[in-house]
C-alpha cells in the first residue's frame, strides 16, 4: 500500500512539474521576475548614505538584505499555483480521472503542494545569480546552501498547504487570487522580508515574531550576511510545514470533491 501511495504521489508530482515547465510563459516569468524585484525594489536605497544602510539594515547592500526576504515572499505566493491547478483539474474533469483510481485525496493534496513548492524553489538559483550580478557575495559553504534550500522548501510547502487547504472545496477560478491577496499582503508587510522590525509598532512586532516569513528571511540573512546558520529557525519552519501539510491533508480528505 505504501508503495502504491509513493507511485501515485510520484506520478502526480511529475505531472505538476512537467506541466509547469512546458509552459514558456512560466519559465520566462520565473526568470524575469526576480531581476525586476532586485532592479526596481533593490535599487530604491542605492543612493542612501552608507551610515544609514549600516545602521538600519546592518549591511551596506540593500540588495543583500532584500534577497532572502524576496525569496521568502516568493515562496509565500507559490501556493496560489497549486490551488489554481487543483481548480483547473476540477473544472476540466481531470480530478474525476484521478479520483477514479485508488489514489487517496491526501496524496493528491501533498503532490499538488509539493508541485507548487518545487516551482517556487527554482527561483533560488535564478535570484542568487541575479543578486550576484548586483554585487552580492555569497558564502561558499555547501551546508549553508543546503540549509537555505531546506528553509525555503519548508516555507513554500507550509504556505502551499495553507493555500490548498483554504481553497480545497472551491471550483471558482477567482478564489486563489482572492486568498492570495488576503494572505500575502499582511504576511509580507508584517514580516522582515523588506524592512527590519526595529521600527515596527509593538502590535506588528508581535505578528512578525510568529510570522514564518520573518523566520525564513532572518534565516537567509544569517547565511548571506553572517555566513552562519540558525538551526532553531530551520526547525520552526519544518514544524510549520509539517503542521500545514497535516491540516491540509485532513481537510482534503474531507472536502476535496471531483467538481
Amino acid at each position: 500500500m505504501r508503495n502504491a501511495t509513493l507511485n501515485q504521489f510520484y506520478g502526480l508530482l511529475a505531472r505538476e512539474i512537467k506541466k509547469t515547465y512546458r509552459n514558456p510563459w512560466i519559465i520566462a516569468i520565473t526568470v524575469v521576475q526576480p531581476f525586476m524585484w532586485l532592479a526596481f525594489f533593490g535599487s530604491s536605497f542605492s543612493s542612501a548614505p552608507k551610515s544609514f544602510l549600516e545602521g538600519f539594515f546592518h549591511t551596506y547592500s540593500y540588495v543583500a538584505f532584500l534577497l532572502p526576504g524576496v525569496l521568502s515572499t516568493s515562496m509565500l505566493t507559490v501556493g496560489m499555483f497549486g490551488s489554481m491547478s487543483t481548480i483547473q483539474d476540477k473544472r476540466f474533469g481531470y480530478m474525476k480521472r484521478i479520483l477514479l483510481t485508488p489514489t487517496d485525496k491526501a496524496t493528491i493534496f501533498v503532490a499538488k503542494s509539493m508541485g507548487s513548492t518545487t516551482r517556487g524553489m527554482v527561483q533560488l538559483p535564478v535570484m542568487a545569480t541575479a543578486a550576484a550580478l548586483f554585487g552580492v557575495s555569497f558564502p561558499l559553504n555547501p551546508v549553508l546552501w543546503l540549509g537555505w534550500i531546506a528553509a525555503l522548501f519548508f516555507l513554500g510547502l507550509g504556505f502551499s498547504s495553507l493555500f490548498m487547504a483554504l481553497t480545497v472545496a472551491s471550483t471558482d477560478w477567482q478564489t486563489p487570487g482572492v486568498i492570495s491577496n488576503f494572505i500575502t499582503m499582511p504576511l509580507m508587510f508584517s514580516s522582515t522580508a523588506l524592512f527590519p522590525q526595529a521600527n515596527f509598532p509593538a502590535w506588528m512586532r508581535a505578528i512578525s515574531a510568529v510570522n514564518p516569513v520573518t523566520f525564513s528571511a532572518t534565516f537567509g540573512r544569517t547565511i548571506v550576511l553572517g555566513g552562519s546558520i540558525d538551526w532553531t529557525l530551520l526547525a520552526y519552519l519544518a514544524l510549520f510545514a509539517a503542521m500545514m501539510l497535516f491540516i491540509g491533508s485532513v481537510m482534503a480528505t474531507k472536502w476535496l470533491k471531483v467538481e
Partner: protein
Amino acid sequence: MKRSDTAHTDAIDCDAGAIVTKGITKRYGSFTALENVDMIVPRGTIFGLLGPNGAGKTTMIKVLTALIPADAGSACVSGHDVRREPKLVRADIGWVAAEVILDDDLSAMENLWLQAKLQNLSDWKNRALDLLRYFELYDRRNSRVSQFSTGMRKKLEIALALLHQPRVIFMDEPTIGLDPGTRRMLWQLITGINREYGVTILLTSHYIEEADALCSNLAIIDHGRIVATGTPSELKSRVKADIVEIALNYEPDMPTFAHMDGVQEAARTENGMRLKVASSESVLPRILSCLNIDGVLKINVDKPSLETVFIDLTGKRLSDDEGRMDMRKFYATLRMTRR
C-alpha cells in the same frame, strides 16, 4: 486482491453479476436523483443504461464508482462492496467520459504512464504499447494530446480505461458530440474490446440506435427509477404497436381518437397528440380523415423499436432538445480543455 464475498450489506449477492445494486437511493436536497434502484449487470456484457438528461444515469455511475455515497441501498462492482471497499472497486474499473478528459500538456505515452502510476502498475509499458497499436495510435505515442483529433483522443481515453485490465468499464455517453463516422468507429472499438478483453461495459446513452447496436442488455431509467430491463428484443416485444405522433396547430378532439378502432391509447402532447396503434398502415387513413388537414404540422410514425419502448414507458422521446443542449455543453467543455 481481496474479494468481498462475505462482507455484504443488506444481503446483496455481489457475485450475481459484474454490477449488482439493491435499493440504491440518492437525494440532492429535496430532489431524488435515484430511487430504489435494483440492477444486475451480467458479466462480460455491454449493458446500456438508457435515459434522458436528468434521469439519473450519471448519478448512478458516480455511486457505482464510489465518487458519491448512496443515501440508501447497497451496490457491488466486480465483487467489491462499493461503500466498504471503494479502493478495490476503483482498482478494478475503467472510465470513459463524455467530454474526453486527458492531460493535453502530456503525450499519449505520458498519459498512459500517469494512469499506470495512479493504478500502481509495475509492468505496464508493453500493455500500453499494445493498446496504442490496437487503437492505431502507436506512431503518435510521443505527440502531445493537444495535437490529437477528437477521434484519436477518444481512442486514447479508452486505452487509459483498459490499461490496468479492469473487469468493468463505465462509459458515460461516450459518443456524444461525435460525427457519425467517428461514432461508428467507436461502436466497433467498444464491441471489439468487449469481445477481445472480456470486459463488462456499462454504457449510458442518449442514442437509441447506439443502445440497439451495442448492448446485449438494457435498463431504461427515468426520473431516477428503472422502468424496464431486458435484452433489446425483449423490450421491443413488449410494445406490439406503432406510435403515431401528430403535431397540430389546434386543439384535437381526443375522445374521437381514443375510441377509434385500432387505437390502443391516445394521449395529448404539448403540441398535438400521441396515439398507440396496432397497425399504422390500417389506422392512419382513419386518423387523417378525422383531422383538419390545414392544422396538421407534422406526422411521425415509429414502428416497434427501442424508441417506441421508451415512448411507451416514459411518455417522451429520448432524442429531445435536452440532447442538443448537452451537445452544446460538450463542445464548450471540449474547447475549454483544448484551451
